[in-house]
């Protein structure tokens, strides 16, 4: 299903009143004070952001998350050698409240250790899809209650960062499968992990090849072209789209370079500075995710992906295929013409391959 977003211009869907030309006020009224009111309200309520990192183990996901938010999100990082490679895919979520200059952010990071690590990785994306759909389901349930909460807690995944191993060639079949399926349910940002093993030229050609792959397979990663509203957005997003996937390096150790303390990886042949644009593109990723497009990520998740899920879910008796993570509610009482399906316990990935495309 192609996500379609109408541009949120206020003049589009008004029912009956005629279009009047805009009035300019003759003097100061004070309408722009509403912006401050909004800010105060937002700061009081705080923000929520849920991010998921997906990739094979050893690609530096946990380190990347720690670097992004400059804190030890995960207690243990990749150096934990005693931890056995998980036999199955497990999803781990951790939530923190971080505050900066009065702005509170409730950050939830979901990690997926074990993704793509088995010998047979068939359908390893199912638990992830199931998790994402389950968050949508929870939100939907809260939304349709009769007595609703004042503010529904938002646990929906706003952004999924996919780590592509730095082979230097092109996207692998596993990557392609995953990106195809998930880009329709959630905002996916692919990154080239461990980019310090590629030279600048190799990075560029790898990037071009990945972009070519994505284009030929019609995979829409964030920022999606169809959601650009006006010319400014398009210009801004085209610049970003040109650099996707970012080649990133993660590091959570500090080193001294030229008298400054920087985050970086120390090797025998030099120190790779994480925040140096000449070395890697981590600042671009951080700016995209946090400084400029965070609200946009949340908006697209709420207005597009969640709505798509909702439409699917509410049309269920029309025999649409059920994706993984479908949760059965109490059986319908009206006796719709659907054949009775076996009730599924939540989050069991199904065997039927034809139902694999999500609603």
């Amino acid at each position, binding site marked *: 299903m192609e996500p379609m977003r109408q541009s949120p211009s206020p003049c589009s869907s008004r029912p009956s009143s005629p279009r009047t030309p805009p009035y300019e006020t003759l003097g100061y009224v004070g309408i722009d004070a509403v912006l401050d009111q909004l800010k105060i309200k937002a700061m009081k309520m705080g923000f929520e952001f849920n991010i998921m990192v997906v990739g094979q183990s050893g690609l530096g996901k946990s380190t990347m998350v720690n670097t992004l938010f400059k*804190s030890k999100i995960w207690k243990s990082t990749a150096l934990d050698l005693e931890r056995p490679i998980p036999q199955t895919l*497990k999803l781990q979520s951790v939530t923190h409240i971080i505050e900066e200059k009065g702005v509170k952010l409730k950050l939830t990071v979901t990690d997926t250790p074990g993704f793509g690590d088995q010998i047979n990785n068939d359908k390893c994306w199912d638990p992830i899809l199931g998790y994402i759909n389950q968050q949508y389901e929870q939100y939907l349930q809260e939304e349709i209650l009769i007595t609703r909460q004042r503010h529904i807690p938002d646990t929906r995944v706003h952004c999924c960062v996919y780590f592509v191993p730095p082979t230097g060639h092109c996207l692998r079949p596993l990557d392609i499968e995953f990106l195809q399926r998930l880009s329709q349910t959630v905002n996916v940002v692919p990154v080239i992990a461990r980019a310090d093993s590629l030279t600048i030229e190799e990075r560029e050609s790898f990037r071009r090849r990945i972009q070519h792959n994505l284009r030929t397979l019609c995979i829409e990663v964030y920022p999606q072209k169809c959601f650009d509203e006006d010319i400014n957005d398009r210009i801004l997003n085209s610049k970003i789209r040109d650099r996707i996937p970012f080649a990133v390096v993660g590091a959570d150790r500090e080193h001294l370079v030229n008298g400054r303390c920087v985050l970086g990886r120390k090797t025998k042949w030099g120190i790779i500075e994480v925040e140096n644009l000449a070395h890697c593109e981590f600042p671009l990723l951080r700016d995209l995710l946090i400084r400029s497009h965070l609200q946009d990520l949340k908006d697209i998740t709420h207005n597009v992906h969640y709505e798509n899920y909702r439409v699917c879910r509410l049309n269920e008796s029309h025999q649409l295929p059920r994706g993984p993570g479908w949760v059965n509610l109490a059986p319908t009482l009206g006796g719709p013409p659907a054949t009775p399906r076996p009730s599924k316990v939540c989050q069991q990935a199904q065997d039927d391959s034809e139902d694999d495309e999500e609603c």
Partner: protein
Amino acid sequence: MTSEVARHLLFQSHMPTKTTCLSLQVSEDEQKQKKENIRSLTMSGHVGFESLPDQLVNRSIQQGFCFNILCVGETGIGKSTLIDTLFNTNFEDHESSHFYPHVKLKAQTYELHESNVRLKLTIVNTVGFGDQINKEESYQPIVDYIDAQFEAYLQEELKIKRSLFSYHDSRIHVCLYFISPTGHSLKTLDLLTMKSLDSKVNIIPVIAKADAISKAELQKFKIKLMSELVSNGVQIYQFPTDDETIAKINASMNGHLPFAVVGSMDEVKVGNKMVKARQYPWGVVQVENENHCDFVKLREMLICTNMEDLREQTHTRHYELYRRCKLEEMGFTDVGPENKPLSLQETYEAKRHEFYGERQRKEEEMKQMFVQRVKEKEAILKEAERELQAKFEHLKRVHQEERMKLEEKRRFLEEEIIAFSKKKATSEIYQNQSYLASGSNLKKDKDRKKEPGYRFELLCFDVRACETNGGRKDAEEGREGPRTMGRP
């Protein structure tokens, strides 16, 4: 191959109570965090998400704001003028009539621009309020209008394919109730109206045309009004006092309710400046002078400080109340027999059935109508056919009758011809006999010509000639001819 998913959650996503997500009080935060195992982290560097409120504001600027004001008050009390003055724009010019039989609501939407903020302002005016002789039905249209806006929003929210972010929110955010400046107390109509509206909309009462009351009387009036409102249990909108930045000013404003306002867009020169004012022979009432009236306070409270809060209250309190009542009325509950949420599938199944039933019914109706029309048409055509048939028969009969008549006449005439020829023969015999008897008769030719018998011969010839031509009518005339000519 199935794979087990075991989720190690360190965070429970279900909030136990209906509190807001992050509250200001620190102790509550800590308690909750301990309960739910959320950790507070300190960061070792600058991450950069303090731009989040700005991102939010940017998005809102792009989307634009919506604000809907309902003005309730008698005709001529100054509603339109006050709105013009509040927003410093001349919206509309004509006065409304006092002679409407019912109360109606007139809504108009304007788009205002100020710096980079786009505000879509909808002003709803009550037309004819308080003008009727019998005012019993006065407030019901207002209540219905407010409910209709809620209903429209609810319908949009319940749709399967919905577009809430581009939906033009027409729910009333604030109701300015205009009290006339009698100086005594609230009118019964005012009390009743406010009582029926207070659970549906934020009410801010204002004393209109406040330049008609003196300051001392005004104070007494205000106290009387507030006490009446309180004693009758009318809940008016209280400016919020939970945020420290605006708590103090809001609290003091709460004490000034209801605001005594004067509206005017006319400018009068006072001192060196042109100010908005009303000029009387005894002085000038300046609109923006706080000593003269509370207009500035109203503008401050309504627009500059609490617009967002008014919208939020409308959405979270009044709309939710309406939604809850409406859904419960439709028969949905949150908890079913097994304590599992039922309303989802029931709501949508019910809606779907309703929709299909409706569609089925309409199809049936259309089919019926079609069949009926076809039958009617058939009947008409048959009728026409029958008529034509009847006409044809009739004509045929007429034709037949005439033919028979003509046949009869012909027969008759033929008989006459035979009679004539017989008579002619006998008369010729007589003539010959008389001729032979008398000898020479000089009158032979002439007399013969003059004799009617001769003429009869000629006429008989004529008749026969006509007959052979086939013109029966002529033959008739011809036959008639000899008859009238007389008989020998």
